[in-house]
């Protein structure tokens, strides 16, 4: 006989299930409509190109590459997701048989998919759910909340899976199913009924009652999806698809002359993607765990920002967002994007925060002390530090470095950056880099007093107007200079020149000094003595997370003969130094972010902490000194020391 099973066995009145099914569809659709109504308030942005978005969707939603960064719960989530999909397909197969009469519930397919595979999937789902419940209620991590809804979702799923197995076992027990062994979980449970001498009439009664309970619970669960965080089944992939497919800025460049409102203060100022994000959050707390502001006790949890905005969107959608998010929360962010990197569904926290900062800064003139001085400095003097534009070339005194003159060609333009020009510590890095470039025989020039701040601190502070003025002036000047390439030692400047200035017509070849030096080492343009120091490398956020550059600086260090030892958090998972988002110019109370990061660096036992950002350099120098660590140097300084002591260089 062909292996098979009778669909709706022992449920003669199963047609009644279409009544609760109809209720399910109505409730589900209404819930979805309510979400859609909020999303439709958002600003629409052009979607294309689709290719990178679909690839990202495949990686992050299909392969769940973000989820599995945390091994145990990550793989548990993958198991549950796969189980969910397989069991859904299994249910569709049942529907094909019962409603369309297709002969699919038989033969090998029935034995190996409908019986064996689905049992394995159900069992994997139960194990995954047990892990989730154990983590949330056993380990009780701070990042996971323990509200009623947090219990409802995994517990109801667990009950659905368990009752499914019990139903299967009762059928196998009552029918003496000859192929029951393929449903190995149900088969094992069926032997339990035998051991308990359960009577067949009782088994039939229990089966029929439990079937309706299982069905109603499953329908209730499905109907509740748009009203619970299980909505992420739909909004997660949607949020991933709508997210910035490349490591760009995620910030738009609005026309401020025509904008009705400057910045974000109402739901309608957010984008559709921003609003989908609110419903995509699964409250997993990974963003909070990664956030340097949260770790240092500041009043910012990226997860709570999303949840507060979601609550605001649902309860008072027409009220200003200043009611939901306080200034001290907004301005606590370092814009390091650790939250976004950690988020498994690609929620973009930083553009929302910067958008709200824009409103506070531009419409209300509210920027925290210190940062406002930096912004005023950019406006009045073209840089956020002490000193005037006239001092821009002080750092290069004694070097054979030329300032670009109008009408002359420019091969390599060294974009020094305000830190390199004005900050005493960063000036040493600028000198080291310039000397390296000169030692390579580069035709390198600088802009001198004509270089002006890229506007990055102003943009991150929310002062988009000032930023756009700076951007337009700089792009105009650089188009006039027309360098073959721009080399910079500042990841913040690079982020502007390479990525964000594209909105203002820029299309320059911009390389970070780590990339340039790494290439020079590979091609043998730099000769140097052997190093040998034990070094740990701190990845600047704007280099690693914003631009994906993590190998080049390490190649420079290993090329300089250094022995590299890594901190636990490195690469794109690096922990911020605390300078980003304008914090380099603000007073920070204890505990300071740089101390947390410096502690990690010192614990590696490295002799030198290396980095490749002038802001990180200062923050790490302060932090490492306070933690009793050794020297902090830029990769250019380390390499120049090697080159300068090299017999070849002599």
């Amino acid at each position, binding site marked *: 006989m062909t292996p098979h099973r009778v669909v709706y066995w022992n449920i003669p009145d199963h047609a009644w299930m279409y009544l609760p099914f109809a209720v399910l569809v109505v409730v589900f659709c209404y819930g979805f409509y309510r979400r859609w109504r909020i999303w439709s308030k958002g600003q629409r942005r052009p979607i294309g190109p689709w290719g990178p978005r679909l690839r990202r969707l495949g990686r992050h939603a299909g392969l769940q590459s973000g989820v599995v960064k945390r091994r145990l719960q990550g793989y548990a989530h993958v198991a549950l997701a796969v189980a969910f999909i397989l069991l859904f397909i299994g249910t569709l197969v049942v529907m094909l048989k019962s409603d369309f009469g297709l002969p699919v519930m038989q033969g090998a397919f029935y034995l190996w998919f409908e019986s064996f595979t689905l049992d394995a999937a159900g069992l994997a789902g139960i194990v995954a759910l047990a892990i989730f419940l154990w983590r949330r209620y056993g380990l009780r991590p701070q990042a996971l909340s323990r509200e009623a809804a947090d219990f409802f979702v995994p517990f109801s799923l667990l009950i659905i899976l368990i009752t499914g197995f019990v139903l299967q076992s009762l059928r196998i027990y009552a029918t003496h199913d000859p192929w029951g062994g393929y449903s190995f979980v149900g088969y094992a449970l069926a032997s339990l009924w035998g051991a308990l001498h359960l009577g067949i009439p009782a088994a039939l009664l229990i089966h029929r009652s439990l079937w309706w309970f299982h069905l109603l619970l499953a329908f209730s669960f499905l109907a509740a999806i748009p009203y619970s965080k299980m909505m992420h089944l739909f909004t997660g992939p949607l949020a991933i698809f709508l997210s910035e497919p490349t490591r760009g800025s995620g910030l738009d460049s609005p026309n*401020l*002359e025509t904008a009705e409102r*400057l910045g974000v203060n109402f739901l309608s100022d957010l984008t559709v993607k921003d609003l989908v994000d609110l419903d995509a959050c699964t409250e997993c707390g990974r963003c909070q765990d990664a956030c340097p502001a949260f770790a240092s006790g500041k009043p910012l949890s990226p997860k709570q920002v999303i949840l507060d905005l979601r609550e605001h969107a649902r309860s008072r959608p027409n009220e200003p967002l200043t009611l939901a998010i306080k200034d001290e929360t907004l301005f606590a962010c370092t814009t390091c994007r650790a939250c976004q990197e950690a988020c498994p569904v690609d929620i973009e926290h930083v553009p929302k925060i910067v958008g709200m900062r824009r409103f506070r*800064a*531009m*419409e*209300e*003139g*509210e*920027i925290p002390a210190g940062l*406002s001085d930096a*912004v*005023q400095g950019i406006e*009045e*003097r*073209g840089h956020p530090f*002490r*000193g*005037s*534009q*006239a*001092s821009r070339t*002080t750092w290069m005194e004694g070097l054979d470095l030329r300032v670009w003159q109008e009408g002359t060609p420019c091969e390599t333009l060294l974009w020094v950056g305000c830190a390199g020009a004005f900050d*005493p510590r960063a000036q040493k890095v600028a000198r080291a880099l310039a000397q390296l470039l000169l030692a390579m025989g580069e035709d390198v020039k600088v802009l001198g*007093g004509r270089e002006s701040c890229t506007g990055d601190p102003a943009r991150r502070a929310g*002062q*988009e*107007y000032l930023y756009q003025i700076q951007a337009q002036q700089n792009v105009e000047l650089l188009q006039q200079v027309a360098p073959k390439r721009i080399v910079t030692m500042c990841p913040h400047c690079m982020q502007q020149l390479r990525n964000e200035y594209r909105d203002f017509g820029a299309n320059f070849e911009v390389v970070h000094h780590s990339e340039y030096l790494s290439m020079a080492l590979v091609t043998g343009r730099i000769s140097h003595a052997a190093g040998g120091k034990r070094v740990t490398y701190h990845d600047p956020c704007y280099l690693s997370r914003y631009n994906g550059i993590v190998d080049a600086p390490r190649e420079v260090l290993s090329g300089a003969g250094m022995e590299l030892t890594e901190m636990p958090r490195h690469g794109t998972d690096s922990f911020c130094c605390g300078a980003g988002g304008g914090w380099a110019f603000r007073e920070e109370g204890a505990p300071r972010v740089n101390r947390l990061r410096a502690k990690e660096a010192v614990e590696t036992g490295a002799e030198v902490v290396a980095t490749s950002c002038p802001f990180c350099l200062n923050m790490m120098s302060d932090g490492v000194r306070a933690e009793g660590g050794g020297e902090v140097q830029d990769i250019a300084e380390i390499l120049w020391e090697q080159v300068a002591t090299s017999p070849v260089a002599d």
Partner: protein
Amino acid sequence: MRVIAFVKSILDPEAPPGAIRFDSGRAQGDVGQVLGPYEGNALELAAQIAEGSGGAFVAIALGGKEQETALRKALALGATSAVRVEREEGFHDPLATAREMQAAAEAAGGADVYVFGRQAGDWDQAVTAGLFAGLAGLPLVPIVQGAEVRGAALSVRREIQGGYEEGEISPPCVLSASNGPGTLLRLPKVKDVMMANRKPIEVRPAISPSGGFKVSDLRANAASRAGRRIEGDLKSQAEALAQDLRRVIPGIGGGA
């Protein structure tokens, strides 16, 4: 209350002396213009009084086109109009300056409160507000760090040695603003900045050429060029700084 604030753009005081050259009594160089620091306090004070009383606020500056930096800032902070009295850059006799200011203020319709910075950031004479008050026959409250409108009067907080004093004055009056928590210049709203850039600035001729003291030569102090950077760790930097200070300022830290 109608308020008139006198403002001034100056060569960036953070510029190194070497970047500024002196020529015909004028300091020049490839250095940007910035709002004088105490003029920033004056603007904030004027804006607060105008807001508190619901009155108009006029900004007046004396000088060339470079003064528009200060006037645009005033417009962005809520000044209803801005007037530039066309006058050559450089040193001017303070009394002549006060007379020019008085004439410009009268032409602008006068005011209940005249606000100055306590001293200009370039010439540092700190006498113009007093001379203006004398010419106008108005009471002067110097070194004001905050003011609040109380009916028809102003409650004024001013700095005195070792503390503060508060008192009341009935306009018309003259205030000279100093830096303090109550006079910290706010950031203008961007829409106001954009509006300010579109507003016209009225230009008036000066009433008379400068008289009195004339500058015939100007040189940077050689000593002020001779700065040095102290290298080393924090402890050795602090020790070297203390030694330098003991050498430069006799008697300092003698008991240490």
